[in-house]
């Protein structure tokens, strides 16, 4: 069923792109103004001997091409450098944070897919009605909302005035939980506002894409043929329309992942959610370049992986790609 050749070709592309991203990343952070050692030492008064030792330790006495090879070698071994502010290996810090971000993005994605695609389908089949128009306008408004601002407004409305949900962190501070269930419930409560914020902002574009592709598909000749055969509208929609509309929606995965990564940075910043996004914001404030470098690499790798998975999924769904 799977074309091995197709998968191998895609895997090759993934490898080349990852390599290009790593190189891009290396060059970007080497054009930085200032001496990396001074940044690492942070205004501390170091003796010339200490500076020299650090220089040797980080391989900065070598020419740039050699440094590049060191860098690639370190990447392959999962060594991402040492954070300037936390004074710990970046890889350790990242591994503590990733799960929190994945949890947040997964929760938001479920809502976005269900409500976004659902309302897109409703809007497409009720095309031209008042319902369709109000759904489209709502989506355009949601699309115009800056994620961070939406979060701040929800904090004021639901957090400060109504006191309905906690507005910061992942656990209630200073509480010891008697069992796992209580602990999970507490995390769930803290998850509500960040998830709603992310979902609201990213839902709009998803709904519009679903609507326009489905409208496009439903005006195809084969839909007319299906109607001429006397099939019910339901059958036409779910057997002939929706599967074909699904294909263009799958190809927007990369766009969605980019959107949701950007959203995570903003939402985690506002709600002090201890994930990758908040880590990046703190790293920006303190100019902690090793962390910035590593998080960028990780986000880019996520995008590349998401693209690869959407290609695979496309292949499974579309027989033309599968068999050709």
């Amino acid at each position, binding site marked *: 069923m799977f074309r091995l050749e197709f998968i191998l070709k895609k895997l090759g592309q993934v490898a080349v792109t990852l390599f290009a991203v790593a190189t891009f990343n290396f060059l970007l952070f080497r054009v930085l103004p200032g001496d990396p050692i001074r940044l690492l030492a942070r205004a501390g008064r170091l003796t010339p001997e200490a500076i020299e030792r650090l220089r040797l330790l980080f391989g900065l006495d070598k020419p740039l091409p050699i440094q590049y090879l060191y860098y690639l070698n370190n990447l392959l071994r999962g060594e991402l450098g040492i954070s300037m502010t936390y004074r710990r290996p970046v890889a350790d810090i990242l591994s503590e944070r990733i799960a929190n971000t994945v949890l947040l993005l997964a929760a938001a994605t479920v809502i976005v897919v269900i409500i976004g695609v659902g309302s897109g389908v409703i809007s497409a089949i009720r095309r031209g009605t008042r319902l369709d128009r109000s759904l489209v306008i709502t989506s355009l408004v949601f699309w115009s909302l800056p994620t961070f601002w939406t979060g701040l407004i929800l904090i004021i409305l639901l957090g400060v005035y109504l006191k309905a949900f906690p507005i910061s962190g992942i656990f209630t501070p200073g509480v010891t939980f008697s069992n796992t269930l209580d602990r999970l419930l507490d995390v769930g409560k803290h998850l509500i506002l960040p998830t709603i914020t992310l979902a609201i902002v990213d839902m709009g574009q998803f709904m519009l894409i679903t609507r326009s592709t489905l*409208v496009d598909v439903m005006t195809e000749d084969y839909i007319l043929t299906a109607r001429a055969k006397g099939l019910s509208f339901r059958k036409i929609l779910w057997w002939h329309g929706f599967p074909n509309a699904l294909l263009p929606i799958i190809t927007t995965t990369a766009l969605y992942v980019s959107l949701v990564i950007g959203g995570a940075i903003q939402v985690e910043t506002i709600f002090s959610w201890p994930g990758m996004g908040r880590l990046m914001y703190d790293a920006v404030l303190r100019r902690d370049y090793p962390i910035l470098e590593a998080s960028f690499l990780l986000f880019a790798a996520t995008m590349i992986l998401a693209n690869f998975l959407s290609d695979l999924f496309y292949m499974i769904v579309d027989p033309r790609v599968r068999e050709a």
Partner: protein
Amino acid sequence: MNLNNKPEPPTEKRERRLWEHLWDDSMGRAGLLLLSLIFLISLCGPLIFKFDPKQVAKTAQEILQPPNLQHWLGTDELGRDVFRATLAGSRISLLVGLLATIISIIVGTLVGLAAGYYSGFSGNLLMRITDFFLVLPLLPLIIILAAIFGQSFFITILVIGLTSWPSTARIVRSQVLSLRERQFIERIRALGATDWRLVGVHILPNVLPLIFANTVLVIAGSILAEATLAFLGLGDPVRVSWGTMLHFAFVAGAAGRGAWWYLVPPGVGIVLVVLGFIMTGHTLDTILNPRLRDY
């Protein structure tokens, strides 16, 4: 066969039709009116209600005041008038958005034209580069570029402009690819037109309506990108945009203190401008893609 007869209607006429269609559509008209209103306010507002960033509070009571008769939209954490600051900020936000868009559209159009017109190695290489930039996550990319190259008005414009062109390049390229195979282009080529003339006089005008629709949406994206970047503390600290205002509000803990008057005005400004551009751009898209229109 009349070779001088242009197969496409003159561009000027087509564009006038585009404007008419836009005005006839209720959403398009709403978008245009909204944008005109905002541009008018942003142009005249700061002249009538001058904002002096150095005029800070002398007493503690003047800080973070809720709206009152003297300060219609309250005061910020330094006791400055939020209403006047919002008017002044509109200019920076709009200017950054528009200038970044100009860079993005020029780069995107040039890359797209070249990638579509030259089918060989160079065209492919350009497309590979475009795809590479498309696979980079946008906000993290903008953040690290701004963090590396510094916080200033022009760097913000450059960073946003030089990262948001790939989607334009893709749209232009696919349109050029289909135009290149059309008969009238082949005829003109047979008459001995140079590449420059062919692209500049015969292909570009036919891509312009699509570029125009795309530009409107790119402006919306650029304004949102600037606001986000500035909110994260990477904006120009002197030329204060709406995003920078919201950054100061966030750092001052306006949300936790319930100071809605400090958060709502700049945010509503961003939403209205972006909504105006998105409504206009969405309508243009629908006009240029008749399948979506015919109901």
